[in-house]
Structures are given as structure tokens and as C-alpha cells.
């Protein structure tokens, strides 16, 4: 199981900026190891974010997203105390969900 995500959500006016740092290898499937064998692709394919349990954002990633991916987005109408959840699912079927409170 992967390490937890770091999520920071900060409210400014009626919006909240959410920054997420995920912990994932994001193997592109292009890289070769020391023996010259291709390292199989292993990357986050799907990400989604919720505000108080309601889905506000879904996205899909290709292998070209960097290792330990960073994602920033802005939620409208979020205020301090709201719960922001982020979920990802990778190409091996692993998923992880973490939650943070808007401050």
C-alpha cells in the first residue's frame, strides 16, 4: 500500500485552493533497468476529488505525469471546515483515498 498523500486546502474568499502531493513511482514503461530490461509501466490512471463527499473533479493521467505527482486545483464554494477528499487508482488497480480539512 502506498504512502499517504499530503493534501493542503486553503480557503480564500469563496474558493479553496487544493494542493495534493501523492506518493507514487509513476513508471512510464519507457525506462530500462541496469540489465537492459524494460521496467513495466505503473502509474496513476485516475484521480478524483470530493468536497464533503460530493465529486467535484475527475481526471485521468498518462504515464507522463512526474514521479510523486503534484496536483493543484481550485474548488468553488468551499469554506473553512469543509472536507476535501482525493482518491487515485493506478494501473495495477491499487487505490488510495485521503482526506483533509479546508483551513
Amino acid at each position: 500500500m502506498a504512502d499517504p498523500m499530503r493534501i493542503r486546502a486553503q480557503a480564500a474568499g469563496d474558493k479553496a485552493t487544493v494542493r495534493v502531493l501523492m506518493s507514487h513511482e509513476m513508471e512510464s514503461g519507457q525506462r530500462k533497468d541496469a540489465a537492459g530490461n524494460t521496467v513495466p509501466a505503473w502509474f496513476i490512471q485516475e484521480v478524483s476529488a470530493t468536497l464533503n463527499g460530493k465529486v467535484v473533479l475527475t481526471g485521468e493521467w498518462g504515464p507522463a505525469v512526474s514521479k510523486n505527482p503534484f496536483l493543484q486545483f481550485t474548488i468553488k464554494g468551499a469554506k473553512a471546515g469543509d472536507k476535501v477528499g482525493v482518491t487515485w487508482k493506478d494501473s495495477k488497480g491499487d487505490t488510495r483515498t485521503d482526506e483533509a480539512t479546508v483551513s
Partner: protein
Amino acid sequence: MKNRRDVLKSSAIVAGLLAGTGLFPQYAFAAYNKGAFEAKTVAEVLKALGAGAPTESKDVTIGGPDIAENGAVVPLTASTTIAGVKQVLILVEKNPAALVARYEVTDSVEANFATRSKMGQSSDVYAVAITGDGKAFFAKKEVKVTLGGCGG
């Protein structure tokens, strides 16, 4: 006067109709769009997503460094002020697969996303906004990479 059996039957029909039009809340992940992520060029990606030929627009912005020292971590931002945008894409033209990320915009998020991307070599990067009726608008920017991020 409706009896219980009729009510059950008609509600089943209504549920079926809703499912048919896709009006049921889509809580789970949609199927991963493999075709779009395997497409080699910007045009192929848009075709795989069912969007038309893109036009350059001032209302779409792509942000990134002019020169990226490390191609493994290139911060890119895509944003748009166009109303009715459903999807925002980030693409790197000369990567093995052009599409980096695709976000679905709902009413409760701003069409403004930042992600870090890998780049194999210096290339044009694109932000594409696709509206609900399949029109695509793009902005592009050249990013020079001094050290590649895809193997090597």
C-alpha cells in the same frame, strides 16, 4: 388507481430510462480512456476524445518554464476562462504519447489545473479546453529541456 405492482413496474421503467440517458449520478470512475493516452499526436488525442480540430484561443493559457533543467519534473499549468468547458487537457507534443493529463471540469471547480510532467525532449506543450459541444481551443508554449525525463 394504481396498485403496488404497477407502481413498481413504472418506477423500474423510469430507472431504466435514467440509466439510458446517463443521468444517474456518476460516482464511480469512468472507464480509463486508453485510446487517448496511447495516441501519438495532438490531433490523434483530440480525435480519440471526440473533439473537433482545435483553434488557438487567447482564453486558454498554458504555463510552464521556458527552460526546464530537469525533464523529469516540469511544472505545467493549464487554465481557461471559456464558459461551458467540460475537459481540460495537458499535452506534450514530442513525448512518446502526447497526452499527459485530462481533467473533467464540473461546476464546482475552476478550469485551472497544475501538474508536474515528464518531458523526453524540448517540445511544444499544449493546453486544450474542450467545450460540451466538442469544440476544442488550445494554447501552446515551447519548453526547452536540457536533461530528458524518459529513460536514457
